């Protein structure tokens, strides 16, 4: 993934806010990159653009060899469906669906049959240690378990880009660590890039690289403790 000179403005005239001010960033496959920085620094805006859910005002964004800026809306929807997995801060599970059904949603969106999708999702949940909670509703799961369902949902369709927005901020320290371990162990694969937006310093240890943002720019790009540990 590669972006060059990405800017993003919100509003017009006197109320114009510049959220991103010329961001350059490369994320290779097989890497876990953490975007860190204080609130309002542009982390979420940048990750939204990289995931294809937000248009940049200017700049080039190439993900998996495809130019996101030039892509039509319809192609972008298809691109996200096929290539991007999401883990949200607030989980965003559908409250009426069971864990297995929630995890199966990307497959259902891709047109899989219900039973096959739920079966495949069950296997991923099993890998994440939730094999005994497949039929539980989100309201019957703890925050950590819900986040694991969200991770299963993000991975079930084998995306090549995983975007995690503050995946540990709604969790206690122990569950945050477990979540990051799972992301590190299961999500980071040779053919997949993982971007984690966070301001939770406790999880920095899982990063291959850390991009530190400040005022709409990448302030510093350093090797993370995990990469250093691996080396």
């Amino acid at each position: 993934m590669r972006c060059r000179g990405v800017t993003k403005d919100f509003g017009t005239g006197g109320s114009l806010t510049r959220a991103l001010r010329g961001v350059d960033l490369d994320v290779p496959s097989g890497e876990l990159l953490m975007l860190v920085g204080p609130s309002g620094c542009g982390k979420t805006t940048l990750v939204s653009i990289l995931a294809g859910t937000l248009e940049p005002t200017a700049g080039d964004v190439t993900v998996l060899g495809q130019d996101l800026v030039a892509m039509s809306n319809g192609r972008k929807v298809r691109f996200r469906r096929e290539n991007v997995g999401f883990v949200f801060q607030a989980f965003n599970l559908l409250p009426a669906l069971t864990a297995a059904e929630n995890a199966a949603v990307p497959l259902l969106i891709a047109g899989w049959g219900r039973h096959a999708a739920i079966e495949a999702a069950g296997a991923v949940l099993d890998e994440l240690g939730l094999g005994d909670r497949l039929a539980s509703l989100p309201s019957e799961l703890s925050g950590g378990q819900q986040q694991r369902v969200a991770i299963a949902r993000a991975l079930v369709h084998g995306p090549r880009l995983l975007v995690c927005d503050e995946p540990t901020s709604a969790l206690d320290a122990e569950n945050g660590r477990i979540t990051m371990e799972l992301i590190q162990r299961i999500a980071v694969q040779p053919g997949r890039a993982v971007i984690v937006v966070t301001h939770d310093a406790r999880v920095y240890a899982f990063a291959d690289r850390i991009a530190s943002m400040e005022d709409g720019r990448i302030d510093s790009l350093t090797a993370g403790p995990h990469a250093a540990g691996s080396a």
Partner: protein
Amino acid sequence: MLWIAWKMLIGNRAKYLGIVFGVVFAALLIAQQASIFCGLMLLTISQIRDVQGPDIWVMDRNVQYVDDIKPLADTELFRVKGVPGVEWAVRFYKGIVRARLEEGSYEQMILLGIDDDTLVGAPEGVLLGSVADLRKPDAVIIDKVGYQKIWPGEPLRLGRVFEMNDRRAVIVGIATASKTFQSFPIVYTRYSQAVLFAPRERKVLSFVLAEAAPGETAAAVCRRIEEQTGLQALTQRQFVWKTLRHYLAKTGIPINFGITVLLGFLVGTAIAGQTFYLFTVENIRQFGALKAMGTGNWTILGMVLFQALQVGIVGYGVGVGFAALFGLATKSFGRLSFFMPWQVLAITGVAVLLIVLLASLLSIRKVLVVDPAIVFRG
């Protein structure tokens, strides 16, 4: 994805029931009021439908509906009989008289005078006595509902006497008859007797009832009667529709019922629309997440429309079901007119479809414009 839409919809039971309630309310009100309206319209034509046998009704040119009596000279009967294609023709009297009961009280009654010889126009379902007894002096047959209205709680009994136009009338039969618009008791008697019971007038003949000869159509014979006599001749079906058109065009009944139906439509739309919109707003992050994960706008549109239709189908079924139960209940205590033809069901169905489509419009707009990036905002 429709399965997800359905699960989302029923997942929040309170909201789901709230939306369905709005549609049930509208469907119930529309179906019930429309059925009562149809029932009332049926009352206006009950006396035409109750006369079995003759196809052709002949009357004054200016008659607008069945209760709009403009008497003819008795000689018109012979002119009608003389028209080629008329197999037979008989006199028929219809009027409202005031009866003095044994107890001294007065009661308005619908007096029907049927042909002395053939008794064409006599009631079909005689419960007590017989039609043939009408040939006895002063004999009348009264309808059961009318009898029970005059003498509530008393058993049906023949031989009761009352007076009309100072003349004695003896009940020799009790019959079933369709309810009428005026809801007065109906009294059947011979034509020659009816003109004595009725107030004295120069002309007394209300209608000539006729039958087309074999091989002739009633409509063709009607045209011939009109050409040759200058009277108005209608088939039974034409007379039914002429009467209905009069009530629809010249009375406030359709407007009154229409207002209630419109109110049901508007209130139902408001309740369903508001609750459905709140439901959508509550689920907007879920819709945003689905969009972020690659669900296209057409699929989202389909999901919302499916939810709306699902609510519509359930609301329609329950609403119309309640309306039908109401109809059954009223039938058992027999006061209210209720008639639910398939057209009422179809109109209610169309109204419900409109309600759910209108109710979902705001929601559709909301989910279509929602930015999938909303899911990244905590």
